[in-house]
């Protein structure tokens, strides 16, 4: 069994354009001083870019939902690890 859907070249062209625009936004944002918010904004944009790469380039939108569930679980565990580390680190 292989994918039944075949993605058109143009879709990838648009996805690439979107990613390049987001990169431009990331760079522009760093010129504006948002102090503590800079990291947050950069991480949010990077997450949006990752979402696009995972969904379109890595074909999660064509795969069975099981793949998405796994990805969400892994990212969830990683977020938990970060949260617990900082919880421990900041409470010392």
């Amino acid at each position, binding site marked *: *069994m*292989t*994918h039944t859907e*075949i*993605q*058109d*070249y143009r879709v*990838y*062209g648009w*996805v*690439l354009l979107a*990613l*390049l625009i987001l*990169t431009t936004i*990331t*760079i522009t944002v*760093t010129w504006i001083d948002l102090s503590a918010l*800079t*990291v947050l904004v*950069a*991480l949010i*944009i*990077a997450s949006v*870019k*990752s979402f696009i*790469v*995972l969904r*379109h*380039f*890595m*074909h999660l939108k064509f*795969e*069975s939902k*099981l*793949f998405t569930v*796994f*990805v969400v679980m*892994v*990212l969830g565990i*990683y977020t938990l*690890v*970060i949260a617990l*580390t*900082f919880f421990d*680190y900041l409470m010392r």
Partner: protein
Amino acid sequence: MEMHRDDIGARLGMWIFIFTEILLFGGLFLVYAVMRNRYSVEFHQAAHQLNAFIGTLNTVVLLLSSATVAMSVTAVQRGEKRKGVMFILITLVCAGIFLFNKYLEWGHKISIGLYPGSEMMIGLKYGYILFFSLYFFMTGLHMLHLLVGSIILTIVMVKIQIGTINAGKYTLLENGGLYWHLVDLIWIFLFPLLYLIT
């Protein structure tokens, strides 16, 4: 008799491997996060030493290469062999450009004496040493992945050419592509965190 094949299982296996990679780099990002929190001023100043222009150029190159790998899958699915090979070739050229830029970037730092274990680096403040060590280790490990990805994609390209990867059987191309997108995915986070947040 046809051999048993499980393409979904093969892709799922690749994804599980990708999860281990995410956690490997995740650990490094975690170290970065804690140390950045602790030495925010030093990290802030040290990041100015990085060449944001080369970083940006490499980001564009990697995004383009990711798109061409994805397009190669479409080409092979449609049975357009020549296009499939061409798209992988573009990806490999992009990888070459990325590595050349990295060579210029690292070469400059090493020529001014800034590399792990150098006298200059040992003399720096602790926060700076941490930043540059993380910079060399994270971009170095990323570069290693890029090299491995290039080797895999070269094999994939040859297999498309000789026809062992074709419209009916292209899991290796898809899995090689997934690995390449992972390399891109890691760079999406490395680039702003190391080069931009100054």
